[in-house]
């Protein structure tokens, strides 16, 4: 693997030296600045046949698309399709569905699937596949509680009717939520998807995708393959030096390095991820105050994390009560509360968790508030520790509610009534918001990146 990466770096370095010759100084650009309203950067030509994108976090296969870290979300955008998509300005565009209509005033919507909608293995996507994919969220009488979907049924060979528990006067934007992407489970690795790219080689620090649909391969001027590289912060600088086509990172020092050296353009992406503290209910104490003391969140954003961050603000669209209502939930009174847990693939969540565990029982600003929060979870006397869990273990821990607290990121924008990946009983507090920067080598495809409604960058949709 190391030899292979070195070879890639040499190729990229050669390409970079050739491309940088005589280029203007990089410019930080606001979003969006392109004539195309959702393009991240001005289009600077066609994309290379083999497109190389680097990240400072790694993506991990996730059976629930849309619930991983930022890198996993971006990679998933290449691999999976929901029924519809929303552009950066909330315009609805087709994805798996090519058309939709309602005949009962918005109580239900019927979607017609594209004829070219296929899984990576060539099998056509049927309405039943979509229902099966959504069934993983079923709870009680609702098929997808957090999206307000009561049920969905096949009404034709390519037609799917989706019924809501409320009135949808327009096509429901929640169907663009990446969590509703259509997948089929596999034994291991990435779930089977319907996106334009599919993974072909996955190694410890890279993932290579290929354009798999021979019918439209290369027609849209899109790269035939995309190589994602996961680098640590030191390695990120090496990749920039080697001339990687693009890098997406929230590491401020890497951004500064890219801005300091010539040959790259840096674009700021939207504030797309909000880190929250979730304190599960102990069942015998009231919820903690959701309002941290003044200056506490600013201090976290300014000093506790190594990424560009700001204090989070409550999001009106999140409808928190919908996330915390789980009928019949009873916390286990014998639970051992010693940890503040975070997803181990999220560096910022780790830094926040490590900051929060210092507060319990200490007279630091915010300490009393946090102690109250931990006490509400039943942990008042012992120092909690920070512990990173892989995504599957972390989701199980969240479902059990048997940890002192949970620190994780959710999308800053939500089209669903609940932004949490799953319902959980307790109180949760937005802490900080973060954003990433897109570092692109001009002429190497940076102009072909567009933004979704939630700030996820992606290649131009060929369909």
């Amino acid at each position, binding site marked *: 693997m190391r030899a292979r990466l070195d070879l890639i770096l040499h190729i990229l370095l050669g390409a970079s030296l050739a491309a940088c010759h005589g280029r203007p100084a990089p410019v930080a650009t606001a979003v969006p600045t392109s004539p195309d309203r959702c393009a991240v950067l001005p289009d600077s030509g066609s994309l290379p046949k083999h497109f190389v994108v680097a990240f400072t976090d790694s993506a991990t296969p996730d059976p629930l698309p849309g619930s991983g870290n930022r890198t996993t979300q971006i990679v998933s955008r290449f691999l999976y399709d929901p029924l519809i998509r929303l552009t950066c300005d909330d315009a609805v565009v087709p994805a798996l569905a090519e058309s939709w209509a309602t005949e009962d005033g918005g109580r239900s919507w019927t979607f017609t699937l594209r004829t070219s909608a296929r899984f990576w293995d060539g099998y056509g996507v049927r309405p039943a596949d979509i229902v099966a994919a959504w069934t993983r969220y079923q709870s009680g009488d609702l098929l997808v509680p957090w999206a307000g979907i009561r049920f969905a049924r096949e009404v034709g060979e390519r037609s799917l009717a989706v019924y809501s528990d409320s009135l949808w006067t327009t096509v429901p934007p929640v169907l663009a939520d990446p969590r509703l992407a259509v997948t089929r489970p596999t034994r291991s690795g990435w779930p089977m998807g319907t996106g334009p790219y599919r993974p072909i080689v996955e190694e410890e620090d890279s993932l290579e995708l290929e354009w798999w649909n021979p019918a439209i391969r290369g027609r849209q001027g899109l790269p035939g393959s995309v190589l994602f590289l996961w680098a640590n912060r030191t390695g990120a600088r090496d990749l920039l030096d080697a001339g990687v086509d693009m890098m997406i990172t929230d590491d401020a020092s890497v951004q500064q390095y890219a801005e300091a050296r010539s040959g790259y353009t840096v674009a700021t992406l939207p504030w797309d991820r909000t880190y929250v503290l979730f304190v599960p209910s102990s069942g015998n104490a009231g919820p903690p105050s959701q309002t941290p003391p003044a200056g506490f969140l600013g201090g976290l954003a*300014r*000093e506790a994390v190594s990424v560009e961050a700001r204090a989070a603000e409550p999001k009106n669209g999140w409808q928190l009560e919908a996330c915390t209502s789980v009928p019949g939930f009873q916390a286990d009174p014998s639970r051992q509360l010693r940890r503040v847990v975070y997803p181990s693939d999220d560096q910022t969540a780790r830094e926040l968790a*490590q*900051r929060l565990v*210092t507060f319990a029982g*200490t007279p630091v600003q915010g300490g009393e508030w946090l102690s109250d929060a931990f006490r509400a979870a039943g942990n008042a006397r*012992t120092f909690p520790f920070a512990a990173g869990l892989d995504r599957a273990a972390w989701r199980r821990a969240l479902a059990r509610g048997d940890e002192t607290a949970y620190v994780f990121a959710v999308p800053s924008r939500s089209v669903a009534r609940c932004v949490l990946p799953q319902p959980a009983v307790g109180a949760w507090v937005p802490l900080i918001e973060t954003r990433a920067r897109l570092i692109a080598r001009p002429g190497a495809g940076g102009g072909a990146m567009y933004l979704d409604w939630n700030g996820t960058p992606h290649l131009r949709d060929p369909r």
Partner: protein
Amino acid sequence: MTFRTRLFLSYAGVVLVPLAVLLFGVRREVDRRLTFQVRERVSALASIIRTDLREQSAALTSRLNALSREAASDNSFRLALRAPAERRYLLDYAGSAMRRAGMALLQLQDSAGRILSSGHFRNEYDRSEPQVVPLLARAKDGPALLRARTPEGFVVVLARLDSIQVFGQRLWVIGGLRIDRGWLNRLYRDPEIAVTLRLPDDSGAVGDSVIVSPFSLPYIDAAREGESRLDTAQVVVMHSLAPLARLRRDVNLWFAIVALATAAAALALAGWMAAHIGGPLEELAEKTSQIDLDRLNVQFESDGEDEVGALSRLLGQMTERLRAGSARLREAERRATVGDLARQLNHDVKNGLVPIRNVFRHLAQVARESPADLPAVLLERQRTVEAGIEYLENLARNYARLSPELGRQPCDLNAVIAEVAAGTASQDRLRLALAPSLPRIAADPLVVRRILENLVSNAVESLPQGSGTVTIATFNGDADPRQPTAESHESRPIRLTVTDTGRGMTEEQLERAFEDFYTTKAAGTGLGLSIVRRLVLDLNGSMRVETAPGSGTRFIIDFPVAETAGRRVGGSSLEPGS
């Protein structure tokens, strides 16, 4: 116990006992020396570790000094202390400096104990920890251990304290090197040795199977809830005694092997010795056991020059002497037998003649006193005379055969008693108590008569002058209430008792009563009772005597019942002609 077993036990004892003593001594010496060596090694390692900790502490002090000087001369660091906008540099400073210096803990505190920057716990900044610096300062003379929190748990370090002056205020710099299992393991390479760090809260006891050499270090638990204090931790060097135990097991195993081999060798040697020594002895014993007076032709020749050969030859000579003595003895016995026979013949003839003589005396008396009654008396006593003559004839026939085969035929015991009683001179003293319906016995009537005549004659002679009686009684099976027998009714013998009220016998007299020629009478032959005993035994009967001085004597004889059916006498089943 056989000769072979004795040999085996002797050999085994001679070898195994010294072997056991040797093992005990070897084991004890090995124990002592190895334990001493292990103690020396553990003590030496503990000393090395103590020295190493001091050196590490000194090196840590040097590194902290260098870091402190570097921080004091770092402009960015100094500015970050005063400019909030540059605070991130300060927060990250300890982390990068700690990694650069190869430490596991680095913490900068202001004079009030507030954490300014922490390398092991980057986001611990602003927390107040005022106790640690004074406690470390108290332990400044040597290495001290510090337990601190990290985001994910705890870390124990060898800690030192330093300080710098910036902007007129003192900043404390605490640095530490990790003291964990990996660090302890690097101190030694011996798998039998374990070095552990025992903190004050550790409650685990050291097992008995190790040799321990602990030493103490100052210990500060900054991670505990509540106020920190200066405590004591122990570095414990332990050496397992397992190798010693293994050595003991090996010694035991080898001893067992040697003991078994020795026992096997002793067994083989004992077998060989037994075969070469015990074998001839056993053969000699076998030959010796065959020797008796009838078989003196056993050969004891031996060419052996050893003791067994000499013993064999001695036995041969002894057998020769026995053979000669036996021949002389047989000749003497033959002569004695002829003499005995003559005396017995004399005695028996006398017994046969006594009734005849009595009849003739009676006839002579009748002829003198009432000659007219002579024919009648003659006829009356004719049967007695004829019986006496018949007795003498049978006696003569028996002696003619020298060793007569006793006739066994159904015999009416009561009839024989009547005949004997009729021929007895002292009939007025004789009493008969004969059982009716007495089964016949299996005996020659002549022999029974000889028995009775001898017993009655002796009984009458034992009576005092003018008084006393002799009672002859027969019993059918269990009819003798004084002398019950254990046999069934059918197989019970017929019992004859001859009881007198005479002077009886002493115990000594009774013991010798059946010896030949033993008599207490002036004119006795001493053969009567010996003949009786011999005759009773010849008839397969049994006899015993009950007597006491002054109380008379009672002879009890049991005769076997004849086997024929309908053998009763005086009953309805009497045989014809009986």
